[in-house]
């Protein structure tokens, strides 16, 4: 079986997790793809650390407003009932446990629930931005990632090798192969995305993965979009 990387699978599966009324923060990179898959009948509030709750769809070209962007710098529109606040209030919301889900991209995530996503020493040092606060304060932290690095190594590890963004904070990892709970120092496979099998994933992942007895094989229907 050949692995074909597909970010859309990750995004669509995560979008199915949310329930009406929840507050979600979507990080830069892969997590921004989640929004388009949120079902029409689920009404959530998208928060961005720049200081807004209630982000609407992207504006049509030509109608962007320089005073309306998200934390990634992309132009946004407003949802009915949206509100603005300063950065101190925004991080009060984040650290104070008022955000239900923080979805972040990762360079590495380990079975202890630690993640690394802000620094490759000597190579790439973008900085943590709001990621350390988001992982510390959100009710549920979801790591959203392609299962493998371009080199072929798995991003899921026994122990992160890069400088940590947060220690023991990740609750759930969603890759383009499956869904993994982080519990008791192990990954627990709860969903496996067809055509992959638990054994195929275990063999190629540099971490301890326990396959839950009630795990499901799931087909995520998305357009092919190799990353």
């Amino acid at each position, binding site marked *: 079986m050949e692995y074909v990387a597909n970010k859309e699978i990750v995004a669509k599966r995560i979008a199915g997790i949310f329930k009406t009324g929840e507050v979600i923060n979507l990080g830069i990179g892969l997590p921004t793809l989640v929004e388009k898959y949120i079902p029409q009948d689920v009404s959530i509030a998208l928060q961005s650390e720049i*200081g807004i709750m209630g982000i609407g769809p992207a504006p049509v070209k030509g109608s962007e407003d320089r005073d309306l962007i998200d934390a990634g710098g992309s132009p946004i529109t407003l949802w009915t009932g949206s509100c*603005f606040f300063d*950065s101190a209030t925004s991080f009060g919301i984040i650290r104070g446990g008022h955000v239900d889900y923080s979805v972040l991209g990762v360079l590495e995530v380990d079975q202890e629930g630690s993640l690394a996503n802000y620094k490759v020493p000597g190579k790439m*040092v973008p900085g*943590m931005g709001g990621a*350390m606060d988001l992982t*510390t304060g959100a009710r549920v932290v979801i790591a959203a990632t392609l299962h493998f690095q371009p080199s072929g190594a798995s991003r899921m590890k026994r122990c992160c090798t890069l400088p940590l963004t947060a220690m023991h904070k990740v609750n759930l990892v969603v890759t383009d192969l499956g869904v993994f709970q982080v519990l008791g120092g192990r990954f627990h496979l709860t969903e496996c995305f067809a055509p992959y099998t638990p054994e195929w994933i275990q063999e190629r992942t540099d971490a301890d993965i326990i396959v839950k007895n009630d795990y499901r094989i799931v087909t995520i229907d998305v357009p092919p979009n190799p990353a």
Partner: protein
Amino acid sequence: MIDIPIISAADAAGKINEGDSLMVGGFLNCGSPHTIILALKEKGTKNLTLICNDTAVHDFKTGKITGVGHLIQGRQCKKIIASHIGANQETQRQMNAGETEVELVPQGTLVEQVRAGGAGLGGFLTPTGLGTEVANGKQVIVVAHKPYLLELPLKADVAIIKARKADKSGNLVYNGTARNFNPLMATAGVLVIAEVEEIVETGEIDPNEIHTPSIFVDFLVQAIQLD
């Protein structure tokens, strides 16, 4: 309420001295005092300690430079305190070459340091950064069985901020996500200069809708450069 001086961007830049610590409001290109930044670049004042959420944009490929990126390109900063430098390749280059000291701070910690500085607090306790490089050298304090990092307040010799509107006494109103760090930095500069798009008579802004009270603001500058 007395009127405060409305000065030129060049005069505002003249109030920033060699070796000063300088807070600059804004998040990427949103809500930065671009007119004053360009005047400061023109003046060429050096050895600044820049405190800013991020270092805006400097893209080597396209040559695009925005916001405080101009000050970094002009090698006007000896030290930069920021949460994110990922969109500015020149900041990363200067850091890796050892030319400029860069201190990366989690965004929620940075803004709270600024808030604490402006609010007369001796610091604050945050769980953000525990178990990461951010915790190195910092005191850990346990409150009700939970560990926190002690983070210290930040003040600056000068804060330059951006608002949508001011009255002549210096009351400020922000617009959209351009609010971000600006209201906090307004409290933490010994000298505070607000660049605004519109200046109205004192009394024209509903007191209920003022975001930053005039007491924090020393000078106004009419914005010319908006991004």
